[in-house]
């Protein structure tokens, strides 16, 4: 029972992380329909930037994180500008952006290695340990959950209450119609890339503190974001959150009885079952 509870808590904490990734990736995907794999290396870039600023230049952590957010947002906008926008203009058939995104992923991932050098980076910050009965967690875990809650609420507010937020929602629903009623879909696209990447930077910074950053960390991140969005339902940010938690809980609790040799494929099994049984996802086009 103790193990079960611990795994449950692990699942909830990781769920917050995956949900954040799902929110960022989902925002971009639902609005622009672009499978932005390069989301992964941009996340990595953010982590390494934070490390560079905090450990390399000695800035206080919060300032370093801001730096990471700026870098990620910049790269996100640049990706749209340099690559996806061009493809949109040339009327590329679907899934071309996916392949192009893979090219971009290769470029950015190796750029991290060139600019920052290879090897894992860690920050010398340890969370304080807390026990709740048999279950244990650190303050970093609390930060992860808290960041998710704050960002999710902020995003929800932004989408519902501000003009640009509503424009994003409109575009998610029907891009053509959005254009027809006068929404500048290009500007909205830039916006979601910026916001989505910024969110990933927060997640990246937390992981840097918790586990350390590695040059390949982005691949897992973007996959989890992708899975969360699909499981939750494309077009639904609430779904991305639910999807993220579901995947994390299955990953954690699923391995309660199954040997950890299967860790890599457990989330895929969930994904597979979800698509078979309920392809539209948990929430489909439900309103956030």
């Amino acid at each position, binding site marked *: 029972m*103790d*193990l079960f509870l*611990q*795994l449950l808590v*692990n699942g909830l*904490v*990781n769920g917050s992380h995956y949900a954040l990734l799902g929110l960022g990736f989902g925002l971009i995907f639902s609005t622009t329909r672009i499978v932005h794999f390069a989301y992964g290396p941009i996340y990595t870039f953010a982590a390494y930037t934070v490390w560079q600023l905090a450990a390399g230049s000695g800035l206080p952590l919060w300032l370093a994180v801001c730096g990471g957010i700026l870098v990620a947002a910049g790269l996100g906008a640049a990706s749209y500008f340099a690559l996806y926008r061009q493809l949109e203009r040339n009327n590329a058939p679907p899934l071309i952006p996916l392949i192009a995104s893979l090219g971009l992923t290769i470029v950015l991932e*190796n750029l991290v*290695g060139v600019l920052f*050098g*290879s*090897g*894992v*980076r*860690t920050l*010398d910050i*340890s*969370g304080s*340990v807390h*026990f709740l009965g048999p279950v*244990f967690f*650190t303050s970093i875990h609390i930060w992860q959950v808290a960041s998710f809650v704050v960002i999710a609420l902020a995003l929800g507010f932004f989408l519902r209450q501000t003009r640009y937020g509503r424009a994003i929602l409109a575009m998610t629903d029907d891009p053509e119609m959005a254009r027809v009623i006068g929404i500048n879909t290009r500007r909205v696209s830039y916006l979601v890339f910026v916001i989505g990447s910024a969110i990933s930077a927060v997640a990246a910074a937390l*992981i840097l503190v918790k*586990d*350390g950053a*590695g*040059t*390949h*960390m982005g691949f*897992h991140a973007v996959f989890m974001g992708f899975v969360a969005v699909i499981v939750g339902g494309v077009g639904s940010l609430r779904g991305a959150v639910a999807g993220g938690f579901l995947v994390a809980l299955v*990953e*954690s609790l699923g*391995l309660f009885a199954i*040997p*950890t*040799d299967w*860790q*890599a494929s457990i989330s895929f099994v969930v994904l597979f079952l979800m698509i078979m049984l309920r392809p539209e996802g948990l929430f489909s086009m439900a309103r956030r």
Partner: protein
Amino acid sequence: MRKTAIAVMAAAGLVFASAAAAQDGKDPEAFRFGAILAMSGKADWYGKVMSQAINLAVDEINEAGGIDGIPLEAVIEDHKSGVAKEGVSAMNRLITIHDVQAVLTSFSAPSLAIAPIAEEKGILLLNGGGVSTALVGATDLMFHNRSLASDLGLAAIKHAGELGLGNMAELVWKNDAGESVAFAVEPAWKAAGHEVVAREAVDLGASNIDTQVAKVRASRPEWIGLWLFSPETGLAMRKLREFGVDVPMIGIEYTGEAKEIAGKYSEGYEYASDYFIASDDNLWSKRFTEAYVERYGEEPEFYAANYYENVYVLAEAIRRAKAKGGDYWDGRALAQTIRENPTFDSVYGGTMTYQENGVAKKRVAIFRVEDGEGTFLNYVTAD
């Protein structure tokens, strides 16, 4: 930069001229050898460290006049963190374009894949990385200057036995290196009357091992066997301690990368490894360490030491073969020379001897991490 010059010379000039050189037993203009390393991908730390060591050794040897005046040249190739077919491509390039007679290899999959090519073309293979059982005997032309991973594992559990520890939980790398250790260790530990209470797999490059750690914790072991390599060793230590698992951790490796990640949690970790320590009674290792620190700004550990050593082994083999005369600059001749006289100076101190199976017999020792550094505890006697 010297290393650039060497690499450029090797790569650019020889597309068409290679076939003519060094065919008939005359001295070649340079002893060109290859190194297939993880220069990109998720394990690129290894490639960085290994290539640094190789270049240092090559420069040292050349500064001392090379081998009878003939310089060494290294050509570094990439197998993208262990992709077998990349290793094969690299091997083909090295043989065809650079006309090498020896290759320093790393990682199991590419090594296994290039073994038949080495066999066919008569190329000497020197491996300084992890040695899984699958690698041993892949070809007579391959030599390993590191103890078998499974032997290191057995040394670790012997130490655990000496400490009076009982139930073991394991964290195992999900590849042939890690699994070969678990495979060897589990029956031995059970035969000694103890239990294996948990066995959790860790993927290479895994970032999230919370579940594994939670399961280990729940199994209430008396100690934990870390059959992992960098950087997961460091991650495991950190996570275990963070999760409140206080029992002894014993493993088979400890590197600068692991130290970086584990931070203060590495304290008290013990491991079995080939005995590499820069000490005053081992002048060569001290010199090597100082030179490496001066050139690269970081301390070398045994991966660097192994590849540095392999270059010297190669140089020595060439020297011995040349002394015998004949067509000495040839992979098979070099391998033959090593078999005839398998004892070489070791940067680990003293000498090492290659056994029948091609694996070097080195002194294995148990180390303990204190203040982030590995300190020597005792030697492990062979049994």
